[in-house]
């Protein structure tokens, strides 16, 4: 199998789902028989109506939830057999922009962004320059001392993005990052993600924003009633309805 970036079948998948199902408690499954592969260096839009299971799918990838059935492989590790003490190291390779940002309220913007580096055991001295540079990059050079409560929604979002990318993750997951911003900011945000993607980070963006999806033309993973279909960028340009199969990220 070749993905659209030309990686071969021998390239290990960054994320692999095989017949994955997930339910909360005894309720019905919110995800059913999800089979997909995310290749290293890919850029994916995760779409679907509210309640389709987008956040649940992301939670499975960033290890906030466990599947009720099926196999998930992350960075070549089968999660069913990976010891729990090895999971933090896998999580540190994933950056997450949460839908509600989840900034830590009593920490400054700088401290929030620095948190993943500190968690990874980086020395304070080596953290400062990186974090300040990153905050400058997202346009918050003047706000590094500010607490989240004093920042606007857009500024909080940029802090959340900076925190997600500060440790140069292999995989970046963004849950509705354009939900609370206007089109201009949304476009800038996607360009920022593309820049990260060019640097080698695999990106998955859950979004409702069809105009962005049409403009940026990346592989689309579409969830509908807990089931996944995959569309190619070309197909998206031609039609909003995704085809049932595709090479990259396709159900096997």
């Amino acid at each position, binding site marked *: 199998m070749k993905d659209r970036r030309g990686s071969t079948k021998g390239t290990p998948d960054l994320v692999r789902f095989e017949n994955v199902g997930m339910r909360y408690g005894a309720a019905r499954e919110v995800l059913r028989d999800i089979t997909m592969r995310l290749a290293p260096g890919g850029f994916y839009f995760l779409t679907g109506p509210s309640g389709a299971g987008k956040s649940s799918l992301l939670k499975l990838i960033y290890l*906030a*939830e466990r599947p009720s059935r099926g196999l998930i492989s992350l960075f070549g590790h089968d999660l069913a057999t990976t010891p*729990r*003490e090895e999971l933090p190291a896998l999580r540190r390779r994933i950056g997450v922009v949460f839908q509600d940002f*989840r900034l830590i309220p009593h920490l400054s913007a*700088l*401290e929030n962004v620095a*948190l993943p580096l500190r968690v990874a055991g980086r020395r304070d001295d080596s953290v400062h320059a990186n*974090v300040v540079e990153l905050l400058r990059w997202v346009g918050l050079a003047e706000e590094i001392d500010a607490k989240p409560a004093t920042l606007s929604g857009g500024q909080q979002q940029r802090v959340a993005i900076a925190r997600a990318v500060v440790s140069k993750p292999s995989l970046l997951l963004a849950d509705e990052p354009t939900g609370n911003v206007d089109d201009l900011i949304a476009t800038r945000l996607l360009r920022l993600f593309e820049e990260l993607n060019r640097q080698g980070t695999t990106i998955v963006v859950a979004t409702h924003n069809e105009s962005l999806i049409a403009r940026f033309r990346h592989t689309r993973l579409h969830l509908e009633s807990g089931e996944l279909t995959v569309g190619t960028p070309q197909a998206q340009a031609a039609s909003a309805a995704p085809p049932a199969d595709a090479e990259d990220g396709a159900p096997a």
Partner: protein
Amino acid sequence: MTAQTVRRRRRIDLPTDGDGSGRFLPWIIGLMVYLAALALAGMMALHGAIERWDSALAGTLTVQLPASAGGELEPALKLLRATPGVERAEPLDAAANAALLERWLGPGLAAEELRLPRLIDLRVDPAGLSDTAALAKRLAAVAPSARLDDHRGWLDRLFDVALAIELVAATIVALVASAAVMSIVFATRTGLAIHHGTVEVLHLIGARDTFIAAQFQWPALRLGLRGGLIGLLPALLTLLALSQAAGGVMAGDKVGGAISALPQLTLAPWQWAVLLPLPLAAGITALATARLTVLRALARMP
């Protein structure tokens, strides 16, 4: 914000000190440490007193002869002085007998007018004379009316009572420690609930469980130490006051001219020293309890 700000940044990412549960914890631990200190001190003082009695009486025996058996005194003395392990065997004279009874019958007692039993005070080497029953048998052969008293009977009963009291004190210490541990567990769980969002973010960005546990364990150590000091200081003052009061009672007794029958319930310097690390013990207990509580809670997360 400057580089110094980052260098000086707190290693603690959770503001647990401001939690309501954490504010009360030092006072609860303080109360527990106060009670534990008093119970421990009581236990040590009683143990010390019993040991002193035991060692004081270990080399002492008494032979008692009825007044009517005065003729048996010399054979008894002869046997006793010839017995290996007996260092000294001296009969008490009338004046010494009167002194023993002075506590109950008052001074100026005419002991010779009473038919008092004759007493022989024995000093023995406990290592050289371990079998007092055999000695009693040999004594009965030469002085059938003599009764050898090694004080063991009442001393054993006293030991039983003291052991029971020590067990009660140890139980109090254990209960107090359990209550302190439960308070810390409750406070830590409350802290986990209050900071659930932050804990979850730390978990999801790849923090190890031990990193998150550290956010709770070091504040718990501080609270435990503070609580320990809050409890230890009044406990020491209370014990000093009790020690002063006990000293006064003993002094009054001596002024009265009698040999006190009360044990000296005072603490030796090393026993005072045993109490001093209680705040540290409270701190370490708080640290370990908070750490285990958090680790157990995190183990339930994916």
